[in-house]
């Protein structure tokens, strides 16, 4: 397959390129000119990739040079993975990269007249304000979300859904919270559960304090879930999904573990893995505790996710790809914690 990919130098992208290349696909990487040298260094051992100078915030995306057009028209799949991920991102940046970037990529993909399939990586956070069961096709473009990241991703997904696609099939993937590699524990940046890992890491050094604490308090709502997925699993899944698209014209999948994980259970297990002998106890449900979070190194934007009891359905995924099962948390949590500790060193 000839695949075009954006966001290849990112946390997921690096692994996805390797996973796709391992299956023998030819991958064209759409790369900003500024990141070209970095990308060449990362993928120096991957002969199947070639680099195309592009910028998704430009109106026409690809910087056309002689010969590019023929290469582009011969594409079997476009994977749009690029996007800015950071919960505390300013709106201007999020809007440029996520909304306008996706708009331009959709435009770009529409120009590829023979393109069979367009793959868009969204996020589970577009429905993070919902409570209870969330279907894989559920999307309310007019909802107001707590952080700029989720808001712009929501707008981007609705652009993908509303666009006129002709014969091209569209796949929308909504991965859960991506954590480090389940085999090596490798992680690029501090984010999501890693804010808590960082806190636990520090707590190990304050033994005198933790010993006197009766319990570890957690805020949020009863039944709040955290849909974790290791990054290598996601890369493998995406490879399978890209290789075998079903016949549907538009299909969206929640890429989440089959195991439904409560925030409480996750924190309890993590504390255990960190050797902090503390009970986890839920505090009364009030938002008064939220301002305390930044003092503990947890951004305020994380708070809404502790209040969302949304449970993300895997119906489409189980129907089309029943073989895609994530490893259980208890099997890879020690590796993750190990990886995190190395990162904080």
């Amino acid at each position, binding site marked *: 397959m000839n695949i075009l990919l954006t966001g290849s130098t990112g946390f997921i992208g690096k692994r996805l390129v390797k996973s796709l290349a391992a299956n023998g696909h030819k991958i064209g990487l759409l790369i900003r000119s500024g990141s070209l040298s970095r990308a060449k260094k990362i993928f120096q051992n991957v002969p199947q990739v070639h680099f195309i100078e592009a910028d998704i*915030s*430009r*109106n026409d995306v690809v910087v056309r040079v002689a010969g590019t057009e023929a290469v582009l028209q011969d594409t079997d799949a476009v994977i749009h993975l690029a996007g800015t991920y950071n919960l505390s991102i300013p*709106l*201007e940046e999020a*809007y*440029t990269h996520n*909304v*306008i970037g996706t*708009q*331009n990529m*959709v*435009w770009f993909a*529409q120009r590829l007249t023979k393109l069979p399939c367009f793959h868009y990586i969204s996020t589970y956070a577009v429905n993070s304000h919902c409570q209870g069961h969330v279907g894989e096709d559920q999307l309310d*473009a*007019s909802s107001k979300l707590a952080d700029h990241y989720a808001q712009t991703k929501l*707008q981007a997904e*609705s*652009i993908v859904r*509303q*666009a006129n696609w002709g014969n091209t099939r569209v796949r929308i993937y909504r991965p859960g919270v991506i954590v480090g590699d389940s085999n090596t524990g490798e992680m690029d940046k501090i984010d999501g559960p890693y804010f808590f890992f960082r806190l636990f890491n520090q707590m190990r050094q304050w033994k005198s304090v933790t010993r006197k604490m009766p319990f570890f308090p957690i805020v949020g709502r009863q039944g709040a879930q955290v849909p974790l997925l290791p990054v290598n699993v996601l890369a493998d899944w995406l490879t399978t999904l890209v290789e075998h698209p079903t016949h549907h014209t538009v299909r969206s999948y929640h890429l989440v573990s089959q195991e439904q994980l409560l925030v409480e259970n996750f924190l309890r297990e993590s504390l255990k893995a960190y050797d902090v002998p503390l009970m986890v106890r839920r505090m009364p449900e009030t938002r008064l505790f939220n301002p305390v979070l930044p003092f503990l190194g947890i951004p305020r934007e994380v708070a809404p996710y502790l209040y969302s009891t949304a449970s993300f359905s895997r119906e489409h995924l189980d129907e089309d790809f029943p073989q895609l099962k994530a490893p259980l948390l208890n099997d890879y949590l020690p590796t993750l914690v190990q990886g995190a500790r190395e990162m904080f060193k």
Partner: protein
Amino acid sequence: MKEIIKIAYGPSSENYDAHFSFQNEDYRLKRLGVDANVELALHLLKTYRHECDVFAVAGFPPILRIGRETIIHPVYQQLRVAAGRTPVADGTQLRKTSFLWALKSLLKREPHLLSQKKIGFFCGIFQADFLHFFEEHTQHLVFADLYFSLGIPKLMHSSRQLAKSMGRLTPALMKVSLGKKFTKDYDSLIFRTPLMREFHRCDVYIIHKSQLDYVKLWPLEGKTVIVDSLDRFTKEKLLAAGAGRIISCFPEFPAHPEIGCAALEALFLSHQPDHVLDDETLLQEVRALDAQPTIIETATKKKTAQFAFVIHPLTQKQLFQVPGIKNFQKLPLARGIEKLMGKVPGFYYCKMNGIKSEFNGQEVEGELYVIPATPKQLLRQDPESIYRRIHQLCLLAHHRGTSIIGLGAYTKIVGDAGVTIANRSPIPVTTGNSLSAAATLWAASYGLERMDLVKKAPDGRYQGTAMVIGATGSIGKVCVRHLCQHWEKVILVAPRPYKVLDLVDEMRAHCPNTEIIGTTHPDKYSPDCDLIITSTSAQGEKVMDIAQVKAGAVICDVSRPFDLNLDEVATRPDVLVIASGEVELPGQVKIGKTLNLEGGAVYACLAETALLAMEGRFENYSLSRDLDYDKVIEIDQLARKHGIRLSAIMGHTGEITDPEIALCREHALRARLN
């Protein structure tokens, strides 16, 4: 391919990226909504100013003209600066040219669209350039600017008032940052208070497209909405709000429904080599489009139109139907009571509902008001005191939300026949004479057809003689005009010779082929007449001798009380006497209390009031004693259109059935043989 980036103040959930060709040129139109975030808009303008040919900005404050001052919002300037040398189109120039042009051409098609309508402006200062146009057409303007800019529940009613108060407030408003303030939910409790009620009750709303995003639209339900331009999302929003009729002063582009005012101006601007769009070029471009305003009639249930109607007891007997004074009837006090009741102010009587037009499905509800004075009392009293009482009823009816008031029976004869009342009333007034006249003519022609004794010439004219008694009166004149066109010979009878002569001259000028004779007394000519219409205010005095009338003649007795009394009529079974007047309203009509009429029949004047409500013609229609012939013709057409019919013709004693007419015909034929 030309690239246009449209930065919209509105929600980002409506973004699109459209590709189309327009006037032989390829365009890419990309919309970026900023959710009321001005900083984001400025950032986008700065980032993309080298990547597109033209910017379109929509929904940001335009240049406002308040009174003589021109006010430029700081945000407007910031946007221009941020765009650098890339031209910016904001649609104001196009709107200024095309909005009024479209409205004018619309009014040519539907002259009554705005007349006497209450027009609500969500934000009048945005339409400041067009206000003079609306003020020409209606006095009832309601501006809710103070509420929508500051949350103050105070309505304004004229452009002067608007310019004065907004002119004072704008310096302060300029300092308030856009964004948060204008996006707050305006469906607050204050909006629902009685102070704002007048705004909720407008018939037509003028709204700027960008305001749809932050204003609650429930007052629009079932109403007419005029918007400056109509793209896909605007249409969806208005349909969701249940607007009864959507008028867009902007052509629809079915192939690319995203194009709005700003985008179109940007398209025009991109044509220009020097990126300057002057009025002249714009005019040519608009003409080249052959633009027509778009009108969308929605399937939603229209708001029920309400009318009011004033009635009064026609006889002493009817007066005593009022439950409270029933028992006084037999006492010698009856006359005193009648006199006393003549001084009592009017009051609400009952409701009428279920009237539904057969043409446009418009439902109409009526409210009946009573002045408990008998005809004798009404004619005896000083007109001023009657005016006062009717005026009070007008105020009451207006307060209860009705849009037009009709004057029934003798209330319309008093004084100058409605003119004074119309001048004082807050809502339009009609006497209903136009439809009364039309209904009389319907009844007459129905009677003549059934009797089948008068021959018709090949050109459709009756070869016989018709007579109008009371020809110089209001209904009489119209009958004369109608008959002169359809009969070979017409006799005009009125008590005052000078008036008769005047009318005869007038009619001869109109219809030179008709033989027209004027007289002050009918009996000389009545033996020759096939049709006699009497419409006098003789108060029951004898106006003609029925004994002399030709056998088989048709007499229409339009006057109330009747000119012919019952005993006289009984002596001539060979003459068809029609009391006419009554018609039937379309729909399942229910009247709260009895009107002393048979079946579903109602007074023609009441039907006219209901008809005007159905048609949405809230204007002073028939007033004064001079009935306009053109109006009678018009109302005749309207009545047929909406399904108002003659409800079986009425005689002095009730409905005249077809067998009765046949019997009358037999009598007539036998009498003629003798």
